[in-house]
Structure formats: structure tokens, C-alpha cells
């Protein structure tokens, strides 16, 4: 069992690596990777029964990243779990590399090819239905961006999930309140997200998406209600951990300059030292 400090330390290491590989590739989704990395950390290091040793097992827990553009966070966590050598990430976005700007099954540990938004929830619903059909008790987790909620496929899948009483399914919304154009509430207001999902038959909880212990506890408590799919609205900050990137649309897919990169690493090291 990892302590809070160990989880916090890992998250800072992950953040540094996310920046390193984005800086190296001169491409990537910086802000959204930094906003979701604590969630991935807790999922892979405390919650899910999945690792390189059981990735082929039919009983493993599944994770589908609907917000596929934040692949850098996923790659860094998968490398840390031993799915592939971290040095592979030096080829990020290069010719013939399978480490491209979105998750694909060519990379060990990735469950599904995503990148077009609004696909993760239906895919996860399918996996959860199949678990029920097979009488298996694995769980399915999926991570959505808040900006992708207007895709109708999400709401169609939300209906299917409650119709089939998928209490083995947990969707997590990385609620960083930003998308490309601006604030999610200005682009297409989806509030109140909790009431919408509740009226669709889901059980909903809010969490601070950067608080490892809260995340761990809430994930361990799913299903929140018997016979209902669980939704976690994780309140996060886009660009979290690097003050000049926080809550700025510029950093949706902004790539740091050398100076910016150095100052980001300094800030993260400073945070690490003060843990």
C-alpha cells in the first residue's frame, strides 16, 4: 500500500516526465495531461488490478482513456508500471514510433485506440456488459474530458449503462473547466453534470482530483450504489503543478520553450522538496 507521500512523490515524477517527453517531441497535450495524472496515478497504483503480469488475463480490470489526447500522462504511468521501457518514450511522435499523440493498442497496456472524443464511454459500457455476461468481477474505468461531454455518444452510453445496471463501471470526468476554445461553461455549458447523470440513473460523487487519498477512497467505494454505474466528477486544474500553465487555454497543447521547461522542472523539484 502506498502512502500519501509516496503517491504525491510519484505524481511529481510523472509530471516531470510528461514535460520531458512533450518537450522532446515538441508536441503533446500538456495541460490536460497534468490535470489527469493524479487520477491515473491512483488508478494504476492503488485501485486497478492490472499490470504487465496480467495484461492478457480476461479477469484484469480495464481502463479506457476517452480523452485520448492526454496520452502523455498515460504513457508515463504505463512505463512506470513496467509495461514497456521508459526509454521507448524518446521516440514519441517520431517516424514509425507507436508512441504517437493518442493511445493505440500497439503500445503494451493500452486497451483501446482512442483520440476521437466521445468513444471511451460506449467502449467501456461494452466491456462492463461483457463482464456481466461472463459472470466476471473485473471493473471498467474510463476517463473523460469535461469538454467532450457534448458528444451525444456519451449520453447514449450513459443510458445503456444504467439500463444494464452496470455497477462494475466507473466513469471519471476530468473536470478542469477548460477545453480548446475557452471555458467549458462558455463553449457549451454542461452544468449541472451531477444532476444530469443522476437523472440518467447513475450514482455520482465529487472529488478533488488532485487529492490522492480522497481519490483512493472514492475509487475503493465503487459501486457507489448497487445496480448503478458510478460517476466521479474530479475537480482538477488544467496544467496543475506548473503555476504558469495552470488554468490557461494556451497550455491545452502548448509546448514549453527551453526556458519554460527549465522553470517548470525547478518548480516541480521545489514542490517535491517541500513534501
Amino acid at each position, binding site marked *: 500500500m502506498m502512502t500519501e507521500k509516496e503517491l504525491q512523490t510519484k505524481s511529481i515524477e510523472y509530471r516531470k516526465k510528461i514535460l520531458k517527453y512533450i518537450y522532446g517531441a515538441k508536441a503533446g497535450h500538456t495541460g490536460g495531461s497534468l490535470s489527469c495524472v493524479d487520477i491515473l496515478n491512483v488508478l494504476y497504483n492503488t485501485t486497478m488490478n492490472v499490470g504487465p503480469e496480467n495484461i492478457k488475463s480476461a479477469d484484469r480490470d480495464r481502463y479506457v482513456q476517452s480523452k485520448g489526447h492526454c496520452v502523455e500522462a498515460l504513457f508515463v504511468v504505463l512505463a512506470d508500471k513496467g509495461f514497456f521501457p521508459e526509454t521507448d518514450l524518446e521516440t514519441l511522435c517520431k*517516424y514509425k*514510433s507507436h508512441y504517437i*499523440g*493518442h493511445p493505440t493498442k500497439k503500445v503494451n497496456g493500452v486497451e483501446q*485506440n482512442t*483520440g*476521437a472524443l466521445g468513444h471511451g464511454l460506449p467502449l467501456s459500457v461494452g466491456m462492463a456488459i461483457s463482464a456481466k455476461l461472463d459472470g466476471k468481477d473485473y471493473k471498467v474505468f474510463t476517463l473523460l474530458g469535461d469538454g467532450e461531454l457534448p*458528444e451525444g455518444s456519451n449520453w447514449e452510453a450513459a443510458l445503456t449503462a444504467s439500463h444494464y445496471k452496470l455497477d462494475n463501471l466507473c466513469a471519471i470526468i476530468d473536470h478542469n473547466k477548460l*477545453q480548446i476554445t475557452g471555458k467549458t461553461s462558455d*463553449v457549451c455549458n454542461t452544468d449541472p453534470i451531477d444532476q444530469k447523470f443522476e437523472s440518467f440513473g447513475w450514482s455520482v460523487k465529487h472529488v478533488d482530483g488532485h487529492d490522492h487519498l480522497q481519490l483512493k477512497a472514492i475509487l475503493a467505494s465503487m459501486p457507489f450504489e448497487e445496480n448503478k454505474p458510478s460517476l466521479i466528477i474530479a475537480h482538477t486544474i488544467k496544467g496543475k503543478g506548473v503555476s504558469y500553465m495552470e488554468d490557461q487555454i494556451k497550455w491545452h497543447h502548448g509546448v514549453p520553450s527551453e526556458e519554460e521547461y527549465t522553470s517548470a522542472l525547478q518548480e516541480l523539484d521545489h514542490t517535491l522538496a517541500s513534501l
Partner: protein
Amino acid sequence: METIVNKRPGTGQANLEVFSETLQKLAQFDKDIIVVTSDSRGSGKLVPFAEKFPKQIVEIGIAEQNLVGVAAGIASTGKKVFAVSPACFLTARSFEQIKNDVAYSDNPVNLIGISAGVSYGALGSTHHSLHDFAALRAVNNMIIVAPADNYETEQAITQAAALNQPIYLRFGKKNMPHLLPESNDFQFGKGRIIRNGADLTIIGTGETVHPALQAAERLQAEYGINATIVSMHTIKPLDYELIARLAESGKPILTVEEHSIFGGLGEACASFLMENNYRNPFKIMGIPDEYTVTGSQNDIFNHYGISESGILAAARKLVS
């Protein structure tokens, strides 16, 4: 045929930028121009448009099916609608809305597919549109256009705004050279001859016309092979008259497109040639039916020979 010397007046902007600027010029004088976006105004270079004409832009959020449905509804009331979204999502996610709400119901939406083909490079196949010509060719009442340079883009947007018919335009985001000095010969459905040569014809579309032209110049300089280069900006309706004229000599025909080799420009030309008993040596260049190689747009072009040297090699083989 004599050889036209290409004057190459230098490198222009990305067609995407020309699209946005042209739309702003038009919107100044035409309040009926409405842009509809799906969190895509940044990628569509439309932030200045939104600032200047806040009443002429409707933001939908990330919901491309809804984008096209809403655009069709607005178009039905007589407005000139430009629905702008990455080509990959616009033509795949919203295909049924395009088929039913735009084409079949005859609502004159201008569908603008941005960052088309493999422009998104290392973002991978979710973001590539290698299916759009094929899918939309099979939809009745749909014009399909891929402008090759800034001039063609400006003309295409201006003429589309006045056309009042369902139309799909796609372009990329890299800077494009001017292929010819400005002229006034752009017309939907009429291919443009960029260069004349008697030994073979290379028909390109969109961003592939430029490497074809580069290949032609080297073919002449290094091998004495003279190629005609055509910008077939309109994939549908295809310029059959021009293809027939070029096929008469019996010389080889090579087509090049930033699209699957299935169902695009090449197969459209091939079926016309076959049905009309032309038996010219013929080859289709494009993206083959495989898991698309990963990398930048340039990497992908080079890998599949959609490049100066790749087209040069294919042309030489076809001629010999």
C-alpha cells in the same frame, strides 16, 4: 504541347489561413454568412473571425453530429452556413447528418474539413481523413473540392458562398506555394492545367499537386520526360472532358492524392477511363490499405512516395 514555365511566385500561406481571411472579407458585406464550429475555431484559424463578427458565429462544443445537423437547420432558413471542423470528424462522425440533413434534404451547407488528409501527422489515424472523398463521392448532391494553393482556396470559398448547394471543401495547414501566377480560371468541376508536357499526365489534388509539379520539373531536367500536371481540385463532379482530352494521346496517367487509394480521385478517373475504352498505362498513388505509418505529414508522404522523389520514380516507371 509546349511547356509552360512555372513562374513560382513564392510560398504562400496555409490554405487554412486563406480560408479564414476570405471568409472575413465576405462576412463584412454579408450578414447571412454564419460560421458554425465545434471547439474548432482555433484549429480553423477563426479566432479573428469570431472577434470581428461575434453575431455570425455559432459555437456548438465538441459534438460534430450536432454541428452538421444544426448547420443544416440554419441553412434551411436561407443563410450561408460554413460548418467548420477537422475533416476526420466532420466526415466520419457526422456522415449521416451530411447524407440526410445536408445532401438529401438539400440544405446548402458549406462543409469545411480542416487539417485534412494526414495533416495531423503523429496524432494518428483517428485524426486522419483518408476516407472523405470515398465516403462523400457515394452521396448524391455533394460537391467535393480540395484546393491546391492559396488562389484556388480563395476562389473556392468565394464561389462556394455564392453557390447555394451542398459542398465539401477540405484543406491542410501547411504553407502552400503559389502554383501559378494569379489567374481567373478557377471553376468548380474544371481541372486546372498547371504545366503542359507530352509524355505523361500527373493528376493531383489538394496538397499533392505541389510535389507532382516538383517531380515534373526534375523529370524534364534530369530525364527529358515532359509531364502535364493537373490540379483536379474538384473530385466530384469530376472533369471528364479534361480527362478524356488528356487520355486521347494514349500516354500514361498517374494520379496522386492524400487519401486512401480506395474510392478517391484515382478510382474516379479509372472508372471513367475504363468505361470509355481508354487503356492508358495508369497508376493510383495515395495511402495504401494498411495500418498507416506513423509520423509527421512529411514522414507519411515520403513513406508512401507522395513526394517529389516518389512521384518522380513512379512516373519514370510508368513511362518506360
